[in-house]
């Protein structure tokens, strides 16, 4: 196609959250420009938090996202607990892991089956897919409902839960209540293993990149709430050091700041990073499910993230069952959290990747400053880098197919543009060299 000029334009990229557009300029066979334009207006949550009492942060930040509110609550609460010097009850810590399992099950199920799978099977959306794959979609609905149930039990409601608090929870479930989840979760565990098999049967484009994977790593656990931040290129830091190593940059074409590693550039957070850096911490059921389909780290093909998400579904179900079987309610739902001046940082693993929060508090417990860096703004530059490389493989493709492939490549990251600042449009411009 050298010497030709083509424009690919998709006004509406579905199955991502938020409002933005993608612009790709091709000159002959060269990709001249890639811009993931995010025109979602800034949402100002960091400013909303200033002057509010720390006890309000969990409920305010939960409103940032409808699918990962628990991640926001957990990062906010852990950072504030660090600022206040609070050590939580181990039973509360286990409950928070169960809470996070619910969110991962909800979010990964939605993305694997309903947002990403239609790309691989050539359907416009899950509704079209459901007509030919009814059992698969019904299974997805049941899985998602089980995630919703966990979130409702621990958080008080399915969407924007309200029970998480600094020091613990406003209310904790009884042993009986959590044990009632077991039959559903046993079914979900088996269904998740089938999801690994099913996703591995999809066809994947041949595309690998030399990523710097960044994720939490904990000595004993596949990461949710705790751990050091590590990478495959030698990063190994505490959350308190995050801003020494990462930098947010404003770029003209995006209302979401681009996060880069100082002196190194883009990096990748999310399921691929967690899997590649923490495979040894996965429970046996998840490792076995991955091994059965030949999935071993390092996975460098971002399209295969759909299988990794399915493996993380296995993990989330197995981990939920483990927590439930060991569950003893904490002595008190939450510890007292007296006002105190201080500052604290925390990183937790949202379904889409690491979520960093920092808070400074005054002696009355009022928030002096807040910093929130969501996973999508951390992956934003990496998505552009992927597209810059991937689009060069697509120059000879018909416009509509090339566009479809670019949208699929974006959905590898399950981007949540609302979190990063909402809707994506793709525009590919082709000029003569």
């Amino acid at each position, binding site marked *: 196609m050298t010497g030709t000029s083509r424009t690919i334009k998709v006004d*509406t990229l*579905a*199955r*991502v*959250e*938020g409002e933005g557009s993608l612009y790709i300029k091709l000159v002959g066979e060269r990709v001249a420009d890639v811009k993931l334009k995010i025109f979602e207006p800034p949402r100002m949550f960091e400013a909303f938090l200033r002057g509010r009492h720390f006890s309000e942060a969990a409920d305010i930040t939960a409103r940032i*996202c*409808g*699918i990962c509110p628990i991640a926001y609550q957990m990062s906010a609460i852990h950072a504030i607990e660090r600022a206040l010097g609070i050590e939580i009850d181990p039973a509360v810590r286990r409950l928070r892991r169960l809470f996070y399992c619910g969110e991962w099950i909800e*979010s990964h199920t*939605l*993305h694997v089956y*309903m*947002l990403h799978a239609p790309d691989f099977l050539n359907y416009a*959306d*899950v*509704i*079209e897919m*459901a*007509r030919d794959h*009814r059992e698969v*979609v*019904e299974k997805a*609905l049941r899985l*998602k*409902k089980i995630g*919703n149930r966990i979130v409702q039990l621990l958080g008080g*409601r*399915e*969407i924007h839960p309200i029970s998480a608090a600094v020091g613990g929870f406003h209310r904790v479930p009884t042993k009986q209540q959590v044990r009632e989840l077991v039959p559903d979760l046993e079914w979900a565990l088996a269904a998740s293993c089938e999801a690994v098999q099913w996703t591995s049967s999809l066809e994947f484009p041949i595309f690998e990149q030399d990523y710097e994977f960044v994720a939490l790593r904990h000595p004993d656990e596949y990461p949710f709430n705790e751990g050091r931040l590590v990478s495959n290129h030698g990063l190994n830091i505490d959350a308190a050091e995050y801003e020494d190593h990462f930098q947010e940059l404003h770029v003209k074409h995006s209302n979401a700041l681009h996060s880069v590693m100082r002196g190194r550039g883009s990096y990748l957070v999310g399921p691929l990073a967690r899997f590649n850096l923490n495979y040894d911490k996965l429970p046996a059921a998840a490792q076995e499910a991955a091994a059965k389909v030949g999935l071993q780290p390092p996975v460098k093909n971002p399209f295969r993230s759909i299988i990794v998400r399915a493996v993380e579904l296995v993990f989330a179900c197995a981990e939920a069952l483990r927590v439930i079987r060991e569950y003893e309610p904490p002595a008190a739902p939450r510890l007292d959290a007296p006002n105190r001046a201080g500052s604290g940082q925390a990183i937790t693993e949202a379904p889409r990747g690491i979520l960093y929060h920092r808070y400074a508090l005054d002696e009355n417990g009022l928030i002096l400053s807040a910093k929130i860096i969501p996973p999508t703004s951390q992956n934003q530059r990496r998505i552009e880098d992927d597209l810059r490389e991937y689009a060069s493989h697509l120059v000879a493709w018909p416009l509509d197919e090339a566009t479809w492939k670019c949208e699929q490549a974006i959905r590898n990251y*399950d*981007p*949540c543009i*609302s979190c990063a600042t909402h*809707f994506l449009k793709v525009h590919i411009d082709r000029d003569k060299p």
Partner: protein
Amino acid sequence: MKSKSRQMQIIGCGNVDRGDDGAGIFVAKRLCELGIRTEVHAGDALALLDRWCSDDDVIVVDAVVTCSAPGTVHVWDSGLAGSGLPNAARDAAISSHGFDIAKAIELGRALGKFPARLRVYGIAGQRFERGAKISPAVLAAIDAAVQRIRAEIPNPSTC
């Protein structure tokens, strides 16, 4: 699960904290005040599919965005030929934040999880900002929708 016997269900959907988006909830509450059993649905739209059985007669009330004047009450009736949900609703995007009600209904239809009859009352809204007051046109339309639904139900279940 609901019982197998045919049930009349009236489900008000929306978010009362976002101005006119609360219209469906307000219709459900008014009907309940009149002694008619209704339900309110404010969570995951996909969960709507678990609320009905294939024998049920369902009315869903929600705010909609259309080209018509604020307060216009649209009715889409699955029992009438050619009265499917409008294209604009079907074409709404599915996103990582889940499904809207139109998409959930379309998914239900694809999966055969669809009631015997479904009527969607869509009240055209004007303002949907967080914390906004409900607009006068929609307030009037709520009364109109209540009267219309009430007239359509010969033997309503009581609250």
